């Protein structure tokens, strides 16, 4: 296939409608935009023939220049399955190639190539037998919160009773994504811990500092989460994983996804 030539949906029908269709590039049309923090926004895309997805999965996005040069990046699905619509939340990397376009340039009705859903391991679907009665702990650094919020939305939509903890590390209040939604989730029982690493807002009790053992402790003494999901920059994920090991978590209980190079989160 010539690079930059989108495959149409019909090309893949031989491979079976669901499995095969996750492999092709489809057109996504931008139908909605929402600001998410001072430097991130959510893009809602309409994708005809979308086969559905699970919380935690991602898509690949491809941009192709008129001269045929193309750049490809991954973005987590930012909302649970909803017919033909998919959403992504893009945090601006100012020096980046793809995120500035998605964050600032793309307008309603513009199209891009997407492929997915991708991944089957960094996924949490309420009711998974291995997780039992939980709790489940979600640990986010920066934009790593995106797939974890999708998991929380699915948890809420299905009325799941598994206790959930979200530890979300961010530099300062300007970096907070999904602020209002996190308040709502707190009101319905999610244990949300905001870990400001540099600038702490007024009235926040924790002092500025890196994610520590206290931030990932389970209230009932000695208890551990049945499953932990960690997502964020590589440096953050490595740090959180080391803390989890120190807290006695077995490797098999930890699922991680690295978004980019070591970051300050």
């Amino acid at each position: 296939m010539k690079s930059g030539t989108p495959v149409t949906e019909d090309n893949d029908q031989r491979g079976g409608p669901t499995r095969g269709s996750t492999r092709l590039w489809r057109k996504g049309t931008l139908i909605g935009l929402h600001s998410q923090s001072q430097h991130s926004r959510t893009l809602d895309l309409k994708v005809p023939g979308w086969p559905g997805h699970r919380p935690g999965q991602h898509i690949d996005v491809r941009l192709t220049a008129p001269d045929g040069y193309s750049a490809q990046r991954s973005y987590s699905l930012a909302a649970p399955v909803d017919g033909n619509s998919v959403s992504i939340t893009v945090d601006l990397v100012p020096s980046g190639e793809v995120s500035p376009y998605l964050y600032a340039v793309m307008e309603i009705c513009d199209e891009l190539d997407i492929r997915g859903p991708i991944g089957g391991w960094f996924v949490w679907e309420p009711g998974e037998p291995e997780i039992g009665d939980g709790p489940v702990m979600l640990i986010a650094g920066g934009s790593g919160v995106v797939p974890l919020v999708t998991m929380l939305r699915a948890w809420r939509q299905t009325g799941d009773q598994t206790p959930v903890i979200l530890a979300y590390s961010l530099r300062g209040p300007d970096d907070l994504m999904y602020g209002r939604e996190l308040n709502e989730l707190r009101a319905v029982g999610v244990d949300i811990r905001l870990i400001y690493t540099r600038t702490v807002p007024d009235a926040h009790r924790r002092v500025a500092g890196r994610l520590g053992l206290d931030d990932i402790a389970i209230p009932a003494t000695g208890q551990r989460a049945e499953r932990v999901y960690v997502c964020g920059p590589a440096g953050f994920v490595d740090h959180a994983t080391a803390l989890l090991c120190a807290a006695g978590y077995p490797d098999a209980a930890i699922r991680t996804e690295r978004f980019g190079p070591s970051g300050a989160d």
Partner: protein
Amino acid sequence: MTSERNAHTSDRMELDGNAAAGDFSNIFANDVTTVTIHCDGCGAEQLFAQARVYLGGPGTVLRCRGCDAILARLARTPRGTWLDLSGSRTWMFTAPV
């Protein structure tokens, strides 16, 4: 944190298997993140999603999280897609194929 061990690839981005799942799943026509890979270098087993991934060079490189040896390399060239799995002994697909 890992920049010293991988100084030779410091211009590239260290991610994990999730970041390469789109390209590899495309080739295997199946999700690869849950595939267990057996490293030929140190014998360690790890899930594809847990292996280290380097993007940004001419191709994608998958490295063992235990010993850093190359498990797989994937490159797209004008002549075709080149896949080298010589660094891994076996790939175990446990999800329905």
